């Protein structure tokens, strides 16, 4: 744990810290105020209360005054206490398949990380394809993208970071000065971000969105179905990102031969591939194949958890490792978000909110899709992508129902852009990790990130308009 000292004058710090109690008081007053208002026409009493809870949760999620997971727990508590839903039902929604799928995916990623298999892959790829500066940069961009198809993009960024740092050291690149150094870290982050939207495994937000879709409409999206719809967009985005990477950052060195030696040294340190690594790789491969081919039949969560059991039966992972790598806060956050989304839908609050807001200026389904995806991509730059989904999905699904838009399309329109935060370090952990290298100034990320974000949004819309209808997805 590193420390930082706040150098602002004490009175400024005191003032900035003292806003918290006032803010909580304001939220409580606003909550009470909303509940005290007469219930608007067309909205049920439960819907009225659900909107009050939604308001509190949105405020807390956006401001992060308390951890996201604790806000979710607050939602689970308030819903039964205000009589919106029975306790039994509220808590049972926490047992949503999506939550357990996320848990399983986290444990599988923990096994990959702990065994060192992912690092070994990274070293092998960089060593094989990184002969010239251009090829090395391409490998640092594309490999994390590909790996983020199969494990959390955040885990990939955390795993890649020390390797890229080592590359910059070996090449004696100077922080903030070297364009190539900047390019390496930006490439790593962009690769992780773009790759992370391709499957359910890249970011837990994707299954969360599908979980909310399932609870609200009874429909679901399979593992393969998601990939089929999103991967073409990912490939185009990767191509655009690749072009921009070379456009914005100059390759200011001619030779990267020293890197090979360093990578070989790292490989020697890791030793031979162990049986543990082989077995974990095999389990992971079989799990992915089962998700792709039997996901709908067997259930994604069932497959994930069965693989987890296999890992423990084969003694390939210890519970201690799971505790270390699994982000339990996210599990809690998602459970609460699904419960709140369900409550908003069933109480009619989501439909009412949609009618009062976006429906008033929704001229056509395509405009709605464009608006929601734009809102999602903009919000995710400044707040957690899971919170973006928790906030937008209930209203968006209600609008989809009213306008006859396929709810799956709406799920894609929210979930995919919510993962595409390229601009700011706080947008996504991959950007935060890249920024922590000390090679990048904020403007090195903001300008290209903004342009890539706009391009990605356009790509997404084009894919939605021209490609998805071929898959039977109707806007």
């Amino acid at each position, binding site marked *: 744990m*590193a*420390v930082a000292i706040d150098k602002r004058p004490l009175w400024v710090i*005191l003032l900035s810290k003292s806003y918290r109690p006032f803010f909580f008081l304001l939220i409580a007053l606003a909550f009470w105020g909303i509940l005290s208002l007469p219930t608007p026409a067309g909205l049920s009493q439960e819907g009225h209360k659900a909107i009050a809870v939604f308001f509190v949760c949105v405020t807390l999620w956006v401001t992060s005054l308390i951890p996201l997971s604790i806000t979710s727990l607050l939602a689970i508590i308030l819903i039964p206490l205000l009589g919106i839903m029975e306790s039994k039902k509220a808590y049972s929604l926490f047992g949503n398949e999506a939550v357990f799928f996320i848990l399983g995916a986290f444990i599988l990623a923990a096994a990959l990380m702990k065994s060192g298999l992912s690092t070994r892959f990274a070293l092998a790829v960089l060593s094989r394809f990184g002969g010239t500066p251009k090829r090395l940069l391409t490998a640092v961009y594309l490999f994390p993208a590909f790996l983020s198809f199969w494990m959390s993009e955040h885990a990939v*960024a955390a795993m890649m970071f020390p390797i890229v740092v080592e590359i910059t050291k070996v090449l004696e690149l100077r922080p903030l000065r070297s364009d190539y150094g900047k390019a390496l870290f930006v490439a790593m982050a962009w690769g992780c971000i773009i790759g992370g939207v391709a499957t359910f495994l890249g*970011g837990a937000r994707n299954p969360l969105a599908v979980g909310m879709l399932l609870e609200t409409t009874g429909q679901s999206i399979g593992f393969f179905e998601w990939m089929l719809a999103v991967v073409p967009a990912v490939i185009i985005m990767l191509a655009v990102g690749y072009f921009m990477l070379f456009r914005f950052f100059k390759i200011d060195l001619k030779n990267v031969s020293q890197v090979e030696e360093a990578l070989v040294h790292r490989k020697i340190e890791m030793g031979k591939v162990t049986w543990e690594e082989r077995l974990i790789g095999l389990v992971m491969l079989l799990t992915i194949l089962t998700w792709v081919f039997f996901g709908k039949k067997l259930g994604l969560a069932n497959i994930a958890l069965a693989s987890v059991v296999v890992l423990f039966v084969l003694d390939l992972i210890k519970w201690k490792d799971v505790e270390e790598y699994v982000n339990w806060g996210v599990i809690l956050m998602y459970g609460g978000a699904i419960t709140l989304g369900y409550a908003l839908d069933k109480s009619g609050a989501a439909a009412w909110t949609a009618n009062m807001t976006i429906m008033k200026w929704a001229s056509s389904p395509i405009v709605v899709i464009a608006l929601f995806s734009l809102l999602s991509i903009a919000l995710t730059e400044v707040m957690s992508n899971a919170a973006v989904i928790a906030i937008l999905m209930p209203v968006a699904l209600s609008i989809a129902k009213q306008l006859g838009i396929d709810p799956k399309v709406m799920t894609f329109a929210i979930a995919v852009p919510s993962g595409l935060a390229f601009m700011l370090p706080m947008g996504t952990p991959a950007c935060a990790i890249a920024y922590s290298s000390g090679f990048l100034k904020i403007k090195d990320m903001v300008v290209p990130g903004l342009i890539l974000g706009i391009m990605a949004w356009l790509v997404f819309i084009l894919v939605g308009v021209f490609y998805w209808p071929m898959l039977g997805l109707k806007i």
Partner: protein
Amino acid sequence: MKNPGYLKLELSSKGIRLSKELTEGKDLRAAFLARAGIGGGIDIILPDDVWVNAPVREAFTKESPYLLLKDNGNFYIEKGGERVEVGIIPPPAFYEKKTSEGTPFAQVGTVHGGYLTITPIASCDFFPSYENCKFCSANSVMGPVGKKALSVREVVEIVNEAFEEGIAEFVQISLGYLEGDGHGIASLEPYITAIKKNFDTLLAVEAHPPDKDAWIDRTYAMGVDSIAYHLDIYDPERFANICPGKARHIGRDRYLDALQYAASIFPSGTVTSNLIVGLEPVESTIEGIDHLARMGVVPLLPIFKPLEGSDYGGHKIPDTEEIAPLLAHLYNAVKSNKINMNWSKHVSIFITPIEGRYFTGDQAKLEVTLYNLYKSKIGGLATREIAKLRRRLKVREVDDSFESSEL
């Protein structure tokens, strides 16, 4: 004799002789159990509550015009037939005890003024390569502890003994030069944490500047209330000659940079640096005082003592008449740069900036009132609580895990 500031200066540099009764009696016996070197003298309370640690063991003290004697149960300092009544801080009784691990307490820490000074890691990597500061006698006085680090338990025990006895109010940890980019500050963390957890006290550390400023942040965050990076010599050429290890491994510029950075992190008046008086021309020391004060650092002016066991054991003592104007300059520099002078209280081993007023003719009524308030029990409590609150507000823990961004 009537000016306590001047008397402190005289006693600090010339030392004091002890009467036969005191040399052979029990009153000061325990004082000789403690390590020699800086702070190894007798603590005397002069009029106006001015504390001084007067050397008594070194050879040069035999020539001192001052004599400490006991008459009718009272202590006096005598010079040329003139007497001043003084108080004596009895040497701590715990000097005669041992830690639970068998180390004599007198070898673990020493009390001078209101400070208990502990050297948990009695080692300085300058000595093996003969790059030590030439005035330093640490190598010869570290005694049986040698290179062994004290256990945290031993350190807690000695602090407990000193506080139980009521003989010290603050803890100071002293650290020699150690290799590595933090230069040993990380190894002090367990001691600092244990002291802060077990005692409500302010804690000062004297160490060498770390290579990176992040270590200074960490030093403050771990609970250190006051930090000292001793430049000792301001003149660059003399600095390199007298302190070759410091010059080679750290560099004079790093000392100044680290002090400047520390002054932006620690509260005003808690970042200090020694400029030893008597080892460089007065003009150079004045330049050093001004430079440090401008950065918000409190310059401290220990008077050079030719310590036995140091390379400069036979070096001549500076003339107090030459030093007096320096002390006046110190007071004015600290005051004009608006640096808090009230942190150092009951300091006996060097003349504090507030004591510099004795050489200016300035009554400094406001400063003295404030200083007395700080010295009071309520003032002490307030200082400690404000220090805690400040740290709580200023220190932010930065989790470097990717999970910290909450997905």
